[in-house]
């Protein structure tokens, strides 16, 4: 439909590659943050199940056992997945862009050129705060899922990064 056709030769060897970037893992303590979150969630679920058991007359003991069986499986899966997810989270700040690797079954690499960053924000959850960790959010003009959310960065380092990125953005403008 676009009648033009072009068959240029492109030399990919001279160009910096995502695969060659040096990725760093996020702070190890962040896994504790994840586990605490999981624990809270599953404690609430367990309490709800128990409450249901006491108050609903049709809820028999064997059903309770089955339910907790499923609960145990869910908990196991959640722990395994969260471990994989945590280990996979890596980032790389290159001179011209920011890369972030993540995912569980898939490995996603998101790339944001610095001259496309609209702004950078730091977010502290109450659990992360205990460990002195923050989440860096990098926004571009797109409103989709490509914007970066990098958790588990030490607070001071995050502030340095934000300062650096904002500096580069205003230099570009």
């Amino acid at each position, binding site marked *: 439909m676009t009648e033009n056709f072009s068959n240029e030769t492109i030399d*990919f060897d001279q160009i910096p590659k995502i695969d060659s970037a040096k990725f760093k893992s996020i702070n190890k303590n962040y896994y504790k943050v994840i586990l605490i979150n999981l624990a809270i969630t599953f404690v609430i679920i367990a309490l709800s199940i128990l409450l249901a058991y006491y108050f609903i007359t049709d809820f028999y003991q064997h059903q309770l056992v089955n339910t907790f069986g499923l609960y145990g499986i869910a908990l196991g899966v959640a722990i395994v997945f969260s471990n994989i997810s945590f280990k996979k989270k890596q980032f790389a700040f290159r001179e011209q*862009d920011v890369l972030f690797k993540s995912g569980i079954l898939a490995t996603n690499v998101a790339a944001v*050129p610095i001259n496309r960053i609209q702004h950078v924000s730091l977010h502290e959850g109450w659990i992360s705060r205990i460990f002195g960790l923050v989440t860096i959010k990098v926004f571009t*003009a797109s409103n989709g899922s*490509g914007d970066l959310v990098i958790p588990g960065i030490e607070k001071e380092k995050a502030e340095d990064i934000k300062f650096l990125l904002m500096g580069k953005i205003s230099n570009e403008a």
Partner: protein
Amino acid sequence: MIESNFHTPQRQSLVGIIVIFLNILQKNIRSFLPLIIVMAVNFEADDLLKTIIMVVCFVIVLIAYAFLDYWNFTFYIDESNQEFRLNKGIFNKSKTSINLGKIQQVSLNQNLIQKIFNVFEVKIDSAGSEETEVVIKAVSQNQAFLLKEQLLAFEHLRLTNLEAAPDFAKAEIGGNFGQKLLTIKLITLFKVGITSNYIKSIGLILFVLFQIYDNFQKVGERYGVNDQSIMAFFSSDVFILNVFKIAAFVLLIILLINIARTIFKFYHFEIKKQKGVLQISYGLLNTRNTMLKPERVQKVTLSQNYFQKKLDVIRVFVSQIISTDSEGKDTSIEIPGCSAQEKQAIFDLIYHKMPYEGIELKPNIRKVLKSISLLIVLPIGVYAIYSFYVDSSLFEHVNFVLGYFLFISMMLFFGFRNYRLYLAQDFVIKKSGVWDISYEIIEVKKIQNITVSQLFWHQSLDLGSIEIETAGGSIHFQTTNYTQLKNFTDLWLYKIEKSNESWM
């Protein structure tokens, strides 16, 4: 500079009160329609006085509301801060300010009511993450054009470094300034109406038919006709014999509705070129006047099906920067149908470099595996097991199942065959579709971010997916040559980072 009377807070045109009132009235009537009908049906003469009092009270409340709405709606241009400010709201007051430099588009529209009273709706779109869309419902023609000119004057200054010409506004009002690029003829709208939007129109028809059937039942209950008689009617010979005639009739209705909708929406679709900006106007009852700046274009989508190809009609969708709270409305500009030549003319204006297809990437068969299992294996498997073990009578319907299988297979086949990604240095183009084939075109310099991903079991197969985002929409493509995807991602990042060309 033109004498501006927007330095102090302005209200809309006085006539605006009537427009607001009529607008609220028709909205309320539409929402209360069921209630009104029920009341009308149960109406008795004694109630006449009560009804009249109720209606009068209602109207008075609406008029008061319309007046207060009008009175509390003020706007002005704050030149010192380079902002457009709007204050509105009777109880919940809100203040909006839009940076003049961020204004993307100013549209002047008129719906039927506004046309009668000769006022315009001014709609201001801007790029940004806060409140970014402002609508002023009733402004006189002069005010509308002046306001538009003033709002854009800042942009003109920024881009051209010249003082806005004094007779620019007058020229706008005259509407004859600027070179006509494209006028879509009625016959083209007709062609578009016949050949597109089948699914939407079918959906509409089914919805209406369902409502009819529903009401049929209710009315039937009242008059003693029961469900069985209705079902009997639908399975009677008379009905079946005539089913083709009925289907043809329904199809005809669909086409007519579609043609009518297309003509009403896009009547006299015209594109004019004015100082490097495209002015687009269209509409029969509701007229819209909007502008398209080539540098704001983020993504272009072309759509054409088999019939449209024979008739030399292409639909073009141009998307600009989508503001984050446009409530999911599709803010892209649609050009309903143009010939290949006209499409080229539009491209000439939008693109400095013409889009071209680079290397072609095809999807791996694994892409359809998921669809096949979900849409074919699963339902047919369930059907087979169920019929075999539980209810053998279901085997009677095996024809339907066969039909379903053939239909879905065909759709998946054509979808797969048409699913292509073209990667080049300056453009990325995705081709897709079963019946309506679409080409989504993104110029590399508009890219905001890129995400590549790979499922762990595809690692040895070198398969992966990509998502390329712009400020006006994205392209995603799954299950193809991962190495090439990464190569081009690296290339595009390099090109974007190397040049500091503005993307908007």
